[in-house]
């Protein structure tokens, strides 16, 4: 697909931001100041100030001489950059790939986005009007390369859409600075009388390189598209994503459900065609006031069933707060797995873990109770009881090793072993009685010891000597002694109950 880019330029970004809460500042000369080498300098000036002849990098004293009642505020460059970052996030409603262009611009990769707005002209117009409505002076241009869009947004009085493959022509009358050159290269070009790009674009590359160095050629190539320029998006672009912009902000639950259903249908269709299923999905609603609402679901098996996924989202739907309205919905699938089509079975009884209905039930429970709250256990090759099995949230995972049946393990294992007091006759003998929670148990039968050593490559500590014991009531317990009998520092614990 033909690449298209939009460059957005906030010409008076810093002063506009300072004026957001004091709109009267827009009407009179207003500058920001910073201290540089012991002098106060103008770091940003608004439109009325520029009309009065005050520009950036002018000494504040000179500016005050021009306009005695100049409005001045301290510059906060870090805060301004954060605001630009926020604005970039907000622009994700227009395209998933938004890159920062410091200090006062944004670059958008809008390939394949404009048709959702009914054409490139409407798309660009929508961007400009929405950002202007937020109180910023904005210039935006669309072209085939980021470099050309950047140049056109800044150096054309009425920037707009440059039709595909026309960008080089549009660049010709612009000054060399439009190529994002260093100030000294641009100055040297001007000194040589090269005031327009058209004057040097046709010059032999070897001589341009000899006189102005490689950067000029590189920037020229980036602007014309000879050299690829990669944008670094502020948020990684999900490869499985569907977007649905709305003409009117949506505020009702029904509207949100319709949007979700449409997005799910198109995403699932795509997954189905690629024989994939999603394990995790995020449904985002971009609100008119710039905030983002989102709900996340996870599935226990890869799925591309619209009805099932919709049900999962429905359980979380109540947490979406549309406020003044949502004007863009997006559905992303960050985790996608292969899902080979299975043959439909006429009889579904006894499908076990492969049963689709089981996966749907598990997803439903996980969505309501919590994603980590439901799991299976798989055996691992460890002797230490706490490590002898691991949790698995996937229904498809098979045990890597067999379950051990040669050792006796308690049906109930205490999550943390509990201290007990014990009377044991001789070293390494099972205890005669033990006291747990103020109750004395007289031991009638016992098996053991079964020594389990610490796995030193995982954890340091003392070994455990386990005993299976049965008291006079017939209750069976799993006790262990931590450490050697002769060390005098050993302790006894209750670790589990046998049936």
């Amino acid at each position, binding site marked *: 697909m033909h690449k298209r880019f939009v460059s957005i330029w906030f010409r008076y970004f810093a002063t506009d931001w300072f004026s957001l809460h004091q709109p009267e500042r827009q009407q009179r000369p207003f500058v920001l100041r910073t201290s540089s080498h012991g002098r106060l300098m103008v770091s940003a000036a608004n439109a009325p100030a520029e009309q009065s002849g005050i520009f950036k990098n002018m000494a504040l004293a000179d500016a005050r001489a021009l306009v005695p009642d100049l409005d001045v505020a301290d510059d906060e460059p870090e805060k301004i950059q954060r605001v630009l970052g926020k604005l970039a996030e907000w622009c994700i409603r227009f395209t998933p790939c938004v890159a920062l262009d410091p200090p006062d611009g944004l670059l958008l990769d809008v390939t394949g986005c404009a048709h959702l707005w009914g054409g490139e002209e409407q798309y660009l117009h929508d961007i400009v009007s929405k950002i202007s409505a937020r109180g910023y002076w904005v210039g935006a241009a669309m072209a085939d390369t980021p470099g050309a869009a950047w140049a056109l947004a800044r150096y054309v009085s009425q920037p707009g859409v440059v039709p595909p493959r026309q960008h080089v022509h549009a660049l010709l009358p612009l000054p060399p600075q439009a190529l994002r050159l260093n100030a000294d290269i641009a100055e040297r070009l001007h000194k040589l009388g090269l005031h327009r790009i058209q004057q040097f674009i046709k010059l032999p590359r070897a001589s341009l390189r000899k006189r102005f160095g490689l950067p000029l050629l590189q920037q020229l190539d980036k602007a014309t598209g000879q050299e690829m320029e990669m944008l670094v998006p502020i948020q990684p672009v999900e490869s499985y994503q569907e977007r649905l912009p709305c003409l009117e902000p949506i505020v009702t639950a029904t509207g949100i459900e319709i949007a979700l259903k449409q997005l799910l249908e198109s995403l699932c269709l795509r997954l189905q065609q690629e024989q994939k299923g999603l394990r995790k999905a995020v449904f985002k609603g971009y609100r008119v006031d710039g905030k983002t609402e989102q709900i996340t679901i996870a599935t226990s098996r890869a799925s591309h069933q619209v009805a099932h996924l919709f049900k999962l989202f429905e359980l979380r739907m109540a947490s979406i707060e549309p406020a003044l309205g949502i004007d863009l919905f997006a559905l992303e699938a960050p985790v996608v797995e292969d899902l080979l089509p299975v043959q439909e079975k006429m009889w*579904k*009884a*006894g*499908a*076990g*873990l492969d*049963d689709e*209905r*089981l996966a*749907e*039930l*598990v997803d*439903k*429970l996980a969505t*309501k*109770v*919590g994603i980590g*709250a*439901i*799991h*299976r*256990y*798989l*055996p691992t090759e460890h002797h230490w009881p706490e490590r*002898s*099995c691991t949790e698995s949230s996937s229904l498809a995972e*098979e*045990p890597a090793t067999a*379950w*051990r*049946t040669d050792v*006796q*393990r*308690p*049906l*109930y*294992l205490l*999550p943390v072993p509990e201290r007990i007091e014990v009377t044991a*006759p001789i070293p*390494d*003998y*099972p205890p005669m009685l033990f006291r747990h929670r103020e109750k004395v148990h007289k031991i*009638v*039968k*016992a*098996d*053991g*010891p*079964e020594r389990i050593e610490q796995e030193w490559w995982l954890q340091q500590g003392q070994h455990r000597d386990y005993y*299976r*014991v*049965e008291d*006079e*009531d*017939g*209750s*069976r317990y799993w006790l262990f002694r931590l450490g050697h009998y002769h060390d005098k520092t050993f302790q006894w614990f209750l670790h589990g*109950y*046998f*049936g």
Partner: protein
Amino acid sequence: MVSSQSDIVHQLRHDLLRLQGFVPARHVLPTIDLGPINRAFPQHVFPTAAVHEFISATAEEVTAASSFLSGLLSSLMGRAGTVLWITGRTHIFPPALAAFGLQPHRFLFLHPAHHEQALWAMEEALKSPALTAVVGELRDISFTESRRLQLAVEHSRVMGFIINRSKKAGTTACVSRWRIASLPSIPVDDLPGIGFLRWQVELLRIRNGKPGAWEIQWRNTQFVYASDTVDHVANSQQLSTNNEQLSANNYQLTKAG
């Protein structure tokens, strides 16, 4: 043709049972054979598609009930069944299930945050025919709550088990109420140490059946009933008196092994 009065009564009883949800098990469903205990059930068949309740107050009783339950599940699950086990803080230790002839990775464990969530999850799970059985460890379940579970089960024909962790349980709509207590184990071939597991199984309440109490052992992945093992019981009591000698022997055996 006029049928005799006893025939009519028999037919009516049968219809009543059917209306109450005691539908004879279909061929596809595995059944549970509990030997002499079968006689306590209506039509001498263990009621599947019903919710059974186990009363257990202490950790020991819960474990005993869970063990008996694991024994039941081993005949119910077969090769492909799946079980959802809803439990609070206490943990079933999955490797131990293997001793009951079960495949522990076929068990799903759910840890709900509170009672209402546990009930919701249990009801949803009981509605799904994808599961073989649902086990819920609940505390103080009310009559209405249990009736909802019973209704869900009658529709989907999944088996439900409640381990009711309360000291004095109120009335519930469950089809049966059991209490399982551990009994001293039976030695294996007169060897010292802990032998076959043995429980006192009390059927406190059964709808349309006869309550009773039995002794059951777990031997080599199946239940063995007290009537078959009277000799062993007597042996065990005699043997278990001399504990110290047993332990000593046992110790030597373990060392040798």
